[in-house]
């Protein structure tokens, strides 16, 4: 699988360079986040890293909070390592603010913050989250709710949670269902959730990894959305939305590939190591001054 990941990553690397003319203020942090993710996970994103580094050199006031929180953290790490001195200061400042937040509610964002900036503690998934209504009209909403609970309680796999065999088997079924209905984000969340709950059956992961590789297109991007996008007649709008969807898909796929390719891999764990390193380095530099 490692060779496949490297080849996938090389193609995606090239796609980012080929499509950099589509980059806007709105999607720039998403691209930086994707590049950082791929660089961290595959170690083979040299071309786009260099390209993006030169691309952002003239940019003022990068907005790390324009996308998702995970995307913001990843893009801040990218800038802290590759930006100008002013940009580095902004990126470290953004990470420092996040590290000081102490969320008390259980939301996806608070789970990300706890996973990246807090020491690990053991959690137990409450039994009631295993209950799935018998007659559910909106199966996707039901799956989304179950995944959110699993992501929050396991803090994206950084906390050990108790999940029984029936629950684990249902998440397997959800993964296959999501792939069949072409809900790429849901399918990827299911595969990662299986990792968070220490699922140990191979078939679903084999199908999942194969699915990811098969989703890569000729140009290196991920996912086939031509029919859905055909309703947007304005060419510029079409290209803009296509880019946003493709970036999302690539991010989800590469994140999942990283997590399921090795039993020890966990993105949040790596983000914690990386951000703490950056913040510590910055603190040391401040003392030295």
């Amino acid at each position, binding site marked *: 699988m490692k060779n496949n990941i490297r080849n996938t990553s090389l193609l995606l690397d090239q796609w980012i360079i080929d499509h950099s003319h589509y980059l806007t203020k709105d999607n720039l942090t998403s691209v930086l986040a994707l590049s950082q993710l791929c660089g961290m996970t595959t170690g083979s994103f040299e071309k786009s890293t260099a390209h993006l580094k030169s691309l952002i050199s003239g940019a003022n006031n990068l907005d790390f909070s324009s996308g998702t929180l995970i995307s913001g953290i990843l893009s801040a790490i990218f800038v802290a390592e590759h930006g100008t001195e002013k940009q580095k200061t902004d990126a470290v400042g953004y990470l420092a603010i996040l590290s000081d937040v102490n969320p008390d509610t259980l939301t996806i964002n608070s789970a990300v913050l706890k996973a990246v900036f807090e020491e690990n503690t053991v959690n137990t998934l409450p039994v009631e989250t295993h209950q799935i209504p018998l*007659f*559910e009209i909106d199966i996707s909403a039901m*799956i989304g709710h179950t995944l959110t609970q699993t992501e929050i309680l396991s803090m994206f796999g950084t906390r050990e949670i108790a999940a029984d065999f029936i629950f684990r*088997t249902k998440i*397997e*079924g959800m993964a*296959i*269902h999501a792939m*069949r209905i072409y809900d790429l984000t849901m399918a990827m969340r299911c595969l990662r959730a299986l990792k968070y709950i220490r699922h140990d059956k191979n078939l679903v992961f084999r*199908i999942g990894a194969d699915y990811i590789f098969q989703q890569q297109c000729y140009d290196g991007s991920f996912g086939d959305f031509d029919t859905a996008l055909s309703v947007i007649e304005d060419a510029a709008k079409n290209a803009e939305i296509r880019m946003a969807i493709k970036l999302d898909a690539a991010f989800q796929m590469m994140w999942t590939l990283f997590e399921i390719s090795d039993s020890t891999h966990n993105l949040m764990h790596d983000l914690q190591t990386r951000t703490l390193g950056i913040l510590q380095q910055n603190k040391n530099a401040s003392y030295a001054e």
Partner: protein
Amino acid sequence: MERLLEKKEQIQMLDGILHWLNANIEKFQIPIEAAPSTCGPEEITADIKRKAFSELGLAIRLAQRSPFLQQHPEMKKLQKSWVDIIDSQDFFFDTRRRLQLYPHRVVAYSVLRSLGIENDAAKSDLQAVLDRGFMENAERNAWEKLDMKYYIKACGLNHKFPSDEYLLKYSSLTNLPNLAYVQNLDLYGLTHLLFHFADFGEIDMKHFLQQDYQHVQDYTDLSLSMSVVKQDWDLTAELLINQYCLQKTFSEFDRHAAATLLKAQQASGFIPGREWVIAQKTETEPASHIFEDVYHPTIVSLILLDCELMN
């Protein structure tokens, strides 16, 4: 042999299903086959009622493997009603020309045979059609050939279908389609291949499938979990029958899936399909049930109980 449901649960589910089937037997009423028809006999195809009637017959046939079910008063009543329909509707009318109804007629004849009823004229017509060298040789996939062969064998007819080993080689069981892309029809291909190769649990599939056995088992397990998540009780029941076909040591999830079927059973006894569930939740004045949507999961659940109550 171990079971998926507790005895009390089996009886609860069985009584409900048999009650519903007996109460709704008129909905399985096929047309009078001998009624005047302006349609050419070769053009007459099996409509939903004919299909439902054959499928009900299969559940009755498999019930004959269980002494408990054979003696069950509601099952006896159902059998009698089913056989009465065969007689009153002249079921085997013009068998030699109504070739599109042939698959249903062999199913029905195999049911009669399991009940100890022989009909020499009908059998002779069924054999005459086979002797033309058409049925076995027409271009059909392994699934369709196996389906037909299984019932033809059960009728005691002479045939020239290939061996099961040959059909297995050309079936999807030895090269299962990627689950991420399958349509429901592909999954029904899996369930039917397992039903008929295994003779609903009578054949040692570990020996028959050999090196493919474990993958088929894992694939069936994963399909079952997907069906439970989708709340597709029809496919869930078929895949649970497959677990019997594979002579599996049932997992906690298999028992959970069977318990979910029981929970889904409605007060009048039927097991709903997805359309029924949606209608109940979305329509202001829902129909009590939609026969076309609920009859199949109900019959398949009865076949599951046939497996549960065997021996």
